[in-house]
């Protein structure tokens, strides 16, 4: 047993921490949110230069190694400063799908571009009736000859605003919730018949609703074998779920730390509010939640890096996502409450951290979904 980080992981952690400290305070982030893209392209180029965009990828694909613990280390540091750059959708989700499903040519074309920072991607799986079930796909893909025609509507597509290409999950055969018959197509954002309703999420991340109206793609745009993409999609989404869970651990630590600090300096009734035992115990509970969240995310990351079965891995991710949901509510709500009125304003980072973790709680399945999945697996 060895719970310490490798030297490489420590360096990765320090490199993110250094970047955040130098370039990413709350005011800077605010400006990014107000900018047209909602993130900094300059930062993105820097991420590429620092090698961060290679972290989710295996060495044979030219990546850093692709371990889940590496990803966890990075995302946790991202979480503390609420980075808005679309790392997750481009590298973890879309990149994860391409590295699993892509042909040698597709990988050779796309993966280097991702890692160099010259390609933005989105992964469009959710639909209005699917909730969190990845097998629930109604967007249709009808093939005739060399062409496939896509029709349907995708919701909550992260980075759908800026993506050059969108990985569209569509049904090539079967009924709405069949596990078979699900395929992934690479669609250019500018393709005829693609319409993108862009918006910002509560946590500042950009997303889109994407309508596909008779979008024609050639067979070269099919990612992987026709009709059997679901397992790879689940694996990619599980990895992304672990990533946002680790991000939540970072964000919750930041909330705890800021709340404790605030309670030491905010005085009412002639004394710091942190001297009131009513608040002390609640901060102790926040601390406990942060520790349990960290522990279960660590468990899931190590499980993903182990030789465990696919079922055990999926179960570990669901355990983590379900449990951190409880921590998110407790830590987020208490952090706001203990700050008093200033906690519900847009002016302080606490409220923004609260919004980010609330969004994470919904993303890739809420606690109920993951508890049910855990017990069914």
């Amino acid at each position: 047993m060895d719970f310490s980080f490798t030297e490489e992981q420590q360096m990765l952690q320090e490199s993110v921490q250094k970047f955040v400290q130098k370039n990413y305070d709350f005011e800077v982030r605010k400006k990014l949110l107000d900018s047209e893209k909602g993130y900094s392209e300059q930062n993105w180029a820097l991420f590429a230069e620092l090698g961060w965009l290679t972290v989710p990828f295996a060495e044979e694909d030219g990546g850093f190694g692709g371990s889940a613990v590496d990803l966890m280390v990075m995302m946790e540091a991202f979480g503390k400063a609420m980075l808005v750059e679309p790392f997750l959708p481009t590298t973890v989700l879309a990149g994860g799908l391409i590295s699993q499903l892509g042909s040698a040519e597709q990988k050779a074309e796309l993966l280097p571009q991702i890692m160099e920072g010259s390609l933005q991607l989105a992964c469009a799986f959710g639909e209005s009736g699917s909730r969190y079930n990845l097998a629930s796909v109604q967007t249709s893909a009808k093939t005739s000859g060399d062409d496939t025609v896509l029709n349907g509507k995708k919701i909550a597509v992260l980075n759908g605003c800026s993506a050059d290409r969108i990985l569209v999950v569509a049904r090539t055969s079967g009924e709405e919730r069949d596990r078979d018959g699900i395929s992934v197509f690479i669609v250019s954002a500018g393709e005829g018949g693609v319409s993108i309703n862009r918006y910002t999420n509560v946590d500042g991340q950009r997303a889109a609703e994407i309508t596909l109206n008779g979008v024609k793609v050639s067979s070269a745009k099919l990612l992987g074998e026709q009709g059997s993409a679901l397992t790879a999609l689940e694996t990619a989404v599980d990895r992304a779920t672990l990533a946002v869970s680790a991000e939540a651990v970072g964000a919750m630590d930041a909330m705890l730390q800021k709340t404790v600090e605030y309670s030491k300096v905010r005085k009412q009734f002639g004394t710091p509010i942190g001297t009131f035992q009513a608040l002390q115990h609640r901060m102790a509970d926040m601390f406990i939640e942060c520790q349990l969240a960290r522990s279960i995310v660590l468990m899931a990351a190590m499980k993903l890096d182990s030789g465990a079965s696919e079922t055990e891995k999926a179960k570990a991710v669901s355990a983590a996502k379900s449990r951190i949901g409880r921590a998110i509510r407790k830590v987020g709500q208490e952090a706001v409450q203990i700050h008093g009125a200033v906690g519900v304003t847009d002016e302080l980072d606490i409220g923004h951290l609260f919004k980010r973790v609330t969004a994470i709680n919904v993303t890739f399945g809420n606690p109920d979904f993951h508890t049910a999945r855990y017990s069914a697996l």
Partner: protein
Amino acid sequence: MNADLTDDELAFQDEARAFLQAEFPADLQAKVDANIRLSREDLIRWQKILYKKGWAAPSWPLEYGGTGWSHTKKHIFATEMGSIGAPEPVAFGMKMVAPVLMAYGNEEQKQRFLPDILQSNAWWCQGYSEANAGSDLASLKTTAVRDGDDYIVNGSKTWNTYGQYADWIFCLVRTDNTVKKQEGISFLLIDMKSPGITLKPIVLLDGHPEINEIFFDEVRVPAINLVGEENKGWTYAKVLLTHERANIAGVPRGKRRLKALKKLAADTQDGDGCSLLDNPAFRQKIAEAEIELEALEYAELRTVASLTVGKAPGPESSILKIVGTELAQQIDELFVELAGYNSLPFVPQQFETGFEGEPVGPGNAAASALTYFNNRKATIYGGSNEIQRNIICKAVLGL
């Protein structure tokens, strides 16, 4: 023992229901149902309709144009209003400053201010909190210094709700620095158009500038705007704080929202071929909220019953505030949970009057997170829930 209404009360309930059905404007009902924020004008329009009926101020005594209703009738009316989502009168004038004026104002002040409050000709806001005087309100620092027939006010107030709409503000100001802090505070009414007042809007987590910081720079206030005696303001304000807590349980609103939630749940797919209303885990949570609401309703009815037999409102109001706000927040979360991914879009403008863009997400799903974020305020203001628990410890448990 029973919770039955008398024939007279039942007849009143019918009358109130019929009136609301006929007179609550359809466009406002549509806005309420679609989670669109009501504007200043909307609220005033509705208030004036109530005024015409003579029902603008249920809590006021008859002599000032109130209804003279029994506690039970007030309760019935509030229930009927809440169950269709008709907005209560803006509390700052009707429920906060008016009772203080009635109890401590002089005749001239009553005549000058009460009719405009009753008729919704004047919008009031509350100027109590300061950056360093929140829960510990008595430590406030904004000063009022007597200068001939005026007071000169300097300082700043914050977290002020809808000051941008207000014609008047009632303030607690420090008039004596040399005594115990509670004993040097006065209750002053200030015209918002006075030179030297500036507002800085504060945006909340839902993107709406609902509150303000208000700066007073050498603001001249006629001394006739002092309510009651100088340095007695703290006593008056404490009376007001109990009024602030009446009706805080929000039972009718809770019922209305749970009903809406169930309807939405029936129309929302759980991704596995059934509706969320049939999803056992979600169903259980709805039931838990409903049960909590039943307990809260009877806790409130017990207070109404004891007021009816002449008891003064006691620390029970703290229970209603705590449970009412925490249950409302629990319901907020259920809406977010139901909306799932559709809770995430941050497009607050689509819930404002006159939005013409392409809406994001179905129905008002994207309002759910906005409401969740905004309503975290409910456990902070009106005496935070921690302060309410302290009151219970001291006043009830003798700790």
